[in-house]
Every structure is written in C-alpha cells, then in structure tokens.
C-alpha cells in the first residue's frame, strides 16, 4: 500500500494549521472589551466574539431566529459607539432611518473594542426557561396544542399576547410561538403550533416532541399585547395559529369578568381547521360581552356549516358598522392582516389603535 499520500496530506494540513494558529496569535487579539448597556450595566468580555452570543452568555436575550446567520434580521440592537461600519449582510434588514440611529444586527457585530449599546427595557426582562412537556393534544390535522411546565425558573410573567422563542434542540436556531395561556397561569404555558411542511421547528414539535421531553425557551418578547390601560372595545381578527395570542388575551379578560366588549373573528378554511371553538363558545354563553364569530372560507359539503362563510375580513366588514370606538388586535398570515387593516380603516378605526402580529 502506498502510504505516501496520507503522509503528504497530513503534513500539509499540519503546516497550514500551525501557520494559521501562529497568524491568529499575532494578528487577532482584541484584549478585554467592555459593553455598556443602557448606561446602567456593564459586561466585560474578551474581544473577537459576536455581540449576540456575548449578550446571550450574560443572560440578555435578544429575539433571534436564525442562530446568527443574518437571515432572520430579528436581533436588532441600537449601538451608540464602537460598532464600526455596517456590513453588507446587515443592509438588507436595516432601513435608512434605523441606520442613522445606529441599529445593527447583534449577530453580525464583532466586538473589537468597547461598545455602548441600547436595549429596550422590556427585552432585559426576558429570561431563559427550561421546561418539560406535560401534554400534547392534536387540535386539527396540522395543529398541536403543547403544554409546558416551567422548571427553571419555575414561573414566568408576561403580558397577554406576547411570545416566547423556542430553541430547536441540536441547533442554534429559535422559532417564535405566541403564548396561548393567560398570564395568571404562571407555572405552565401553552403553545399552539401549526405544522409548516419542511419547517425546522414545527416539524420537530409535530414529529419528535413527546410528553416528558425537556425544552429550552427564552422570552417573553413582543409588542403585540393587550393594552390594559385602554377602555376601548376590542375586535380580534385571527387566522389559523393567530388564535394563540388572542386566546391568552380573552382568557385574561374572562378572569376579570370581561370588562370590555370583545368580538373575535376567527378565519379558517373548513370545519377541520377550527379549534378551541367549544371553549370560546362556552365563554360566549357565560359573558354577554364576548362574541365569537368563526368564519369558513371554503366549507366542505360534509361540514354542514351554518355559520359565516367567506373571507374573515369580509365577515368583519359585514358585522362592524362603526370601527372608531374599537381597538383592533390582528394575528395571522400577512395577507389577512393587510386586508383586515384596510377593512378596519374603512370602518373608521384609527391606525394607532390597530395592533398586529404577522406570521
């Protein structure tokens, strides 16, 4: 056997590795750097690593889905000083206005010197949670209802409508899921997950996750939540899994005896895509202030559907006369949200009273 090629390739590899190590030792050293956060907290770290990872290691959780590959564009932070020029990988995600105020993607900013950054206060409240799956219920042919018992820390505090980020095991990637349970339920949270064909996390949740498994989440995040200071009546327009945050909001209001009038429109394709309808119908019977209007866009003959048909936005248009006294909470696929905003605007609802979460 000719072992020469083996010797050759190994020696060449060794030489390259040694050369690169020497070069790295002499060329890449940034020393200790300090990251000043909101001028309140300082984090010290060795230079050379990326901001997102350093913040994560220091228990500051910035929402991010792609695991630092600059493909999701979520990990935006404002950097006042020391970030260096913006990279081409970031430019896709950062608007001109954001650029001027120093917004950067934390996963792309390499720490080379001291940094001054600003992170919204509510993000600093996010924590990492370890939880155990207690129950998985198949809600429809492609939607599952997951219950998670929090273990460490054992309790979570969030606003109804916010979301958590679910770490896909074995990867650095996260996926966002809205919390479907009310905030009063602090030790256990519920998620509603639709199976996206080919989707990394939803496929994992649907095909692998079983009761008893342990998972890691960060949160809570998001500015889509119930405005409790407002006294306006509420219109909810949801499609598919958009149910989750609105369910949290409605259960939260139900615990307070439904102080505001709530009309919830739920759009689905056919009867097999409806879920939580019994719970919501029961709430409707119990609280005269709450109306639940499911609408099917393509009811099948065997559904024997007697409720509303057509696009959920058309149903909203039919039921709402004067939108100006309402506050809108929209959650669902982007085209539905855009159409709903248009309808609500037409009905006189002020743009600033419309809150939405696209997914």
């Amino acid at each position: 056997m000719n072992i020469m090629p083996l010797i050759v390739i190994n020696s060449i590899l060794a030489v390259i590795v040694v050369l690169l190590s020497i070069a790295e030792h002499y060329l890449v050293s940034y020393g200790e750097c300090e990251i000043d956060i909101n001028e309140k907290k300082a984090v010290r770290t060795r230079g050379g690593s990326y901001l997102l990872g350093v913040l994560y290691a220091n228990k500051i959780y910035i929402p991010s889905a792609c695991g630092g590959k600059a493909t999701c564009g979520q990990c935006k932070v404002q950097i006042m000083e020391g970030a260096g020029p913006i990279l081409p990988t970031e430019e896709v995600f950062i608007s001109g206005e954001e650029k001027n105020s120093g917004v950067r993607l934390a996963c792309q900013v390499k720490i080379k010197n001291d940094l001054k950054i600003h992170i919204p206060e509510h993000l600093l409240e996010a924590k990492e949670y370890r939880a155990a799956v207690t129950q998985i219920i198949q809600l429809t042919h492609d939607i599952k209802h997951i219950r998670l018992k929090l273990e460490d820390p054992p309790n979570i505090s969030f606003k109804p409508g916010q979301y958590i980020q679910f770490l896909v095991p074995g990867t650095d990637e996260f996926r966002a899921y809205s919390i479907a349970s009310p905030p009063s339920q602090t030790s256990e949270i519920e998620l509603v997950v639709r199976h996206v064909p080919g989707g990394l996390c939803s496929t994992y949740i649907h095909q692998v996750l079983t009761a008893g498994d342990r998972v890691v989440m960060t949160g809570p995040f998001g500015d889509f939540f119930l405005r409790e200071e407002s006294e306006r009546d509420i219109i909810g327009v949801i499609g598919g899994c958009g149910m989750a945050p609105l369910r949290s909001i409605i259960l939260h209001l139900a615990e307070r005896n439904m102080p505001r009038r709530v009309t919830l429109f739920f759009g689905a394709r056919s009867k097999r895509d409806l879920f939580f309808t019994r719970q919501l119908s029961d709430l409707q019977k119990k609280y005269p202030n709450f109306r639940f209007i499911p609408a099917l866009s393509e009811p099948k003959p065997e559904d024997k559907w007697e409720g509303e048909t057509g696009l959920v936005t058309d149903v909203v248009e039919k039921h709402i006369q004067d939108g100006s006294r309402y506050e809108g909470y929209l959650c669902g696929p982007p085209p539905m949200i855009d159409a709903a905003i248009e309808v609500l605007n037409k009905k006189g609802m002020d743009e600033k009273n419309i809150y939405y979460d696209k997914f």
Partner: protein
Amino acid sequence: MIALLSIFLAAIFTNNIALTYLLGMCPFVSLSRNLKTSLGMGASVIFVVTITAAVNWIIYRYVLVPTNSELLEYIIFIIVIAGTVQLLEMIMEKFFPTMQAVMGIFLPLITVNCMVLAVSLFMVLRDYSFIKTLFFAVGSAVGWVLAMVIVAAIREKLELIGSVPEGLKGAGITMIIAGIIALAFLGFAGMVSIQ
C-alpha cells in the same frame, strides 16, 4: 515575453473563465447587482487567485509530484484556498480594517468560488511554469472581475431605465448580458489564444 503576454490576454478575453468556461457563476450573478460590491469582490478575488495559484503550484511541483500523490491535488488545493482566505481575513482585519469592512462577507465566499479552484486545476492541466502560472492566474482573475464589473454596470443602468420584462428580471437578464459580452470578447480570438 510574448508567450506570457499572450497567456495573460487570452485569460482575460478569449478564454475568459466566467464567459467561456462558465465558472464562478454564483457570485457572478449575485454580486453583479451593483458596481461597488462587484469591485470589492473583484479586488479580493484577484488577490486570492494569484496567491493560491502560486502556493498551489509550489506544493504541486515540489510535494505532490515527487511523492507520487497527484491524486490529492483537489483536496490540497481547496485546503490551501481555505487557509489563504482565512489568513487574508486576519491580515486585513488587523491592518486594513476599513477595507475588511467593505469586503466583509465576500472574503469567506471566495473559498467556495469555483473559479479559484479552476485556475489551480488549469495550471496543472496545461503544465504551466511558475511564471506562466502567475500570468495566467492574474489574467483569469482580472478577466472574471472585468466580466462581472461590465455586467454590473449594465445592470445598474438597466435598473435606472427599468424596462426589463418581468420574466427576465434578475438572473435571466444577467445571463443574456453575459452572453452578449462573451460574444464581444470572442472577437479577440484571432489575436490571442491559449496554448
């Protein structure tokens, strides 16, 4: 000298590595969107191609051939390319941080640009001497960059005029432009050709 010049010019025009051999098409199409990025990528490519071709030539001639391990050429060449890019990135970060910021993402991308590997493989195939290899490498890289820069300039202009049919936008029109430029480059066929 004439032979060297002829290799250099042929590598740029008649045997253009992008337009004649269709190599390095992925960055060619995606980076020819604007002139500035294509120039940034271009400079890094010229640098990397020249250095890797020289290093690979030395390794091939003085290590692989004497030890009868020519079959390792593919894997060795690509490792040398990856190592060079890594080294280049460190050097630039230390001494030319602004340039590194401009080239940023393009540097690691060069590792997987097949035209860099192709230059090293052609030099073996055509049995070039060291000097010929250098001329060929610089010529190929300049040719590739030239083609990309021309396409980028035309695409920028088209963007301003904005009458590209919907179905041809993006890669479609880029390939058409590249095709026309390839024809123009082939016009040099009578003057120079590669031996």
